[in-house]
């Protein structure tokens, strides 16, 4: 059984390393600041205690006030998982750091989020639309897209 | 050794009197038409056999709606394709595009001039018959390459490159295995080759030559597992991707005509040609040719396709050395053994075949073919 790690406990362990980057932690998920997202996931991936070597999925949700990105991380070694969330504000050009250099599987998913949700990823090697054509206006999965 | 019959028998052929107006010209014309008709009918029969056989091997039925058991299906197909619009891409090399099917189809029909359907029943008993076959059969490759180039389509171009590479490589094992048959016969005439198989078909005397000729011939006529030039899963339809209508029919004719010619050639060289008890000679010939075609279709329905570098490796590393060795062994046997001593040759040759194939199989390994880029 894949153990969903309690985000509270993980947060307690991460707090000394990343002070003030964890906004909120409840039972299911860890909400972190987008600036420290890359370092945090990088730490989670490389630390043997966590060893999150496998990225299940990335997705984004439009809450109108902000966009929430949801990262599902899994460790195949320890068979546990963790949900990390981050928020980005503003509808013009919301930006979060890309984690493609950590997980290559993030490549297409981040492009997909950029295409459909309009969130740019800093440091992504090929930030282009993936499903829709280049001249397409708007980002269809946003709630205000009609 | 097998003695060559010096009196080539032309008697069975119903010749027309030379004092007809025009002399022999009528004779040539009439029999040319007859042979072309026979070839086209046989191509249709082959298409029908192939479709039904592949159908049954795939647990289907195959075409069965046109006529009894669907025997008119090839005719219906031909009519359908002939009536289709000839679509021509905009950016083609028009002259070559139009010329290519003609260049491809003419040599295939020419070859049948020297195929002995009965004893001496052929259009021209050339004394260089087999050389003529080898020479002419390569020309249709030019047509294929012209088609691939003129279509201005990348798939066609890849296909054309493949076919040139394959034909150039496979011509050699084919010729060498034919040469070892010719050593036994001592004549280049196609009819003499059949006459020489009076006692025993050459498939028993030349098992290795037969295997090499069959494999290399499959590659020459691009049938499975060497059908790289029209590998539908890779390069769509190969060189005739851009062809339609009557030009497509001509290429189709080339494909099946070559296959029929190949089975005729195998019949002549290795299976004793028109020889056989009870049935008329021409029927024996057709039956043997159809049997060879059955095997070709059987392989077609079963085997995956090889890759281009594996195709080349098979030719140069496997078939060519074996064909050379076979030629040398045959030459020694012909020189050293007394005539008619095929009781010695058969076991020796079969043993040599088994040993050589086992030895050469050790040379190949899996998983190669990656190129660092």
């Amino acid at each position, binding site marked *: 059984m894949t153990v969903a790690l309690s985000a509270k406990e993980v947060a307690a362990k991460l707090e000394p390393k990343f002070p003030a980057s964890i906004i909120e932690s409840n039972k299911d998920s860890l909400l972190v600041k987008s600036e420290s997202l890359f370092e945090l996931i990088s730490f989670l991936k490389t630390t043997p205690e966590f060893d999150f070597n496998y990225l299940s999925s990335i997705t984004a949700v439009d809450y109108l006030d902000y966009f929430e990105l949801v990262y599902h991380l899994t460790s195949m070694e320890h068979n546990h998982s963790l949900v990390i969330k981050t928020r980005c504000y503003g509808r013009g050009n919301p930006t979060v750091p890309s984690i493609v250099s950590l997980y290559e*599987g993030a490549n297409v998913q981040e492009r997909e989020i950029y295409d459909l949700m309009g969130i740019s990823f800093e440091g992504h090697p090929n930030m282009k639309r993936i499903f829709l054509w280049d001249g397409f206006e708007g980002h269809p999965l946003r709630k205000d897209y009609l | 050794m097998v003695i060559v019959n010096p009196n080539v028998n032309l008697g069975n052929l119903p010749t027309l009197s030379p004092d007809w107006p025009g002399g022999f010209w009528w004779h040539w014309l009439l029999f040319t038409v007859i042979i072309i008709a026979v070839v086209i009918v046989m191509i249709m029969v082959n298409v029908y056999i192939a479709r039904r056989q592949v159908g049954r091997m795939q647990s289907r039925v195959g075409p069965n709606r046109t006529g009894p058991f669907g025997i008119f299906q090839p005719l219906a197909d031909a009519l359908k394709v002939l009536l289709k619009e000839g679509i021509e891409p905009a950016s083609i090399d028009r002259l070559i595009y139009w010329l290519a099917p003609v260049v491809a189809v003419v040599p295939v029909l020419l070859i049948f001039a020297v195929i002995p359907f009965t004893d001496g029943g052929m259009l021209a008993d050339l004394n260089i018959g087999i050389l003529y076959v080898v020479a002419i059969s390569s020309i249709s490759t030019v047509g294929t390459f012209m088609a691939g180039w003129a279509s201005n389509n990348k798939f066609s171009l*890849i296909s054309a490159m493949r076919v040139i590479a394959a034909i150039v490589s496979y011509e050699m094992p084919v010729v060498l295995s034919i040469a070892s048959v010719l050593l036994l016969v001592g004549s280049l005439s196609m009819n003499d080759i059949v006459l020489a198989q009076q006692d025993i078909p050459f498939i028993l005397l030349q098992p290795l030559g037969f295997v090499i000729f069959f494999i290399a011939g499959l590659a020459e006529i691009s049938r499975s597992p060497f059908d790289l030039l029209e590998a539908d899963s890779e390069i769509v339809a190969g060189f005739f991707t851009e062809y339609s209508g009557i030009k497509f029919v001509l290429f189709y004719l080339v494909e099946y005509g070559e296959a029929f010619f190949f089975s005729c050639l195998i019949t002549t060289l290795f299976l004793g040609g028109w020889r056989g008890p009870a049935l008329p000679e021409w029927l024996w010939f057709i039956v043997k040719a159809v049997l060879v075609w059955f095997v070709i279709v059987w392989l077609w329905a079963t085997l995956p396709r090889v890759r281009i570098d594996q195709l080349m490796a098979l030719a140069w590393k496997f078939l060519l050395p074996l064909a050379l060795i076979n030629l040398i062994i045959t030459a020694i046997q012909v020189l050293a053994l007394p005539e008619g001593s095929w009781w010695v040759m058969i076991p020796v040759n079969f043993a040599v075949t088994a040993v050589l194939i086992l030895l050469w199989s050790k040379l190949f390994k899996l998983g190669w073919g990656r190129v660092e880029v």
Partner: protein
Amino acid sequence: MAIRTEPFVLNMGPVHPSTHGVYRMRATLDGEVVVDLEPVIGYLHRGVEKLAEERTYTGVIPLTDRLDYISSMSNNLAYVMAVEKLAGIKVPERAEYLRVIMAELQRICNHLIAVGSFFNDCGAYFTPFLHMYREREKIIDLFEMVSGQRLTYNYMRVGGVSQDIPEEFLPALDRFLAQMPRCIDEYDLFLKENEILLARSKGVGILTREKAINCSITGPVLRATGVKWDLRKADPYSVYDRFEFDIPTGSAGDCYDRYRVRIAEMRQSLRIIEQALKQLPSGPVRVEVPHLVRPPVGEAYAHIESPKGELAFYLVSDNSIAPYRCHIRPTSLLNLSALRDMAIGWKIADLIIIFGSIDICLGEVDR
């Protein structure tokens, strides 16, 4: 001495016999060797995630049929599991077993197509493909019997399955289980040891373990690299913890191993179905759930081991009758992400079989 050659760009697809849909590869070739590859997707994009936001929770189920249309049952299962997780619905025992039986039948069905079309890409002129379609037809018959449709089953419901199985289903399934092992043996006889197939697929398109995990690749492609990761064992959903089965793995991670893993998984699926039939309880197949499900505010992530790999649905609810956000974790899209690394340096013919061995479905890639 190297001859200077000019690379050229070959557009394979969107309409090409072996791209399994409307996939397009811009391959840069040097002669026949692939030096670069850029996948271009989106030709089948229908905006399923956006459509799902406009429909009721039940109304999304027919949409999930059309994602990976080769294995609709698995998509149904993943989706309804997500909704049940969201709404906290407990599914009756019998329904769980029926779901497992259907999902495993679907796995066999999908692998038959995957292996068959892989052989077809290798150039075996449709014969193994049609032989496998014959067995797929038997499974499709069973699905038609229970759900009334042959491709888009729409069988699973929130809180169970739509209807109980008819009485003639179990005898037919028994016959199928009796026939299938012999059919798989026949496939093995057909091409398992075929020298040409070995030469074509052994050592071709090797994917390493680290690369596979890093690229989020799942399913038989991951297991062929030797990673024993199967969500049915790693995170047993439904009633999978009650069955005994092995996870077949490969060692080299090449095309041949992927094909072998799929064949081995078919045998394991038969084992699971046999056990499920023995344990199949009686009782209701569906709990009473209102037509318009209104799950509480929250989010749920449910993943299953679909035939192609990890398929997951991420649902966010705002306590209305339609999901606020429905994200589909695309198995096929992620499995494709290593295609470029696998194919570079191989010939164009290898590119086709590497692509075929990944087993993707464009309905799921583009959504």
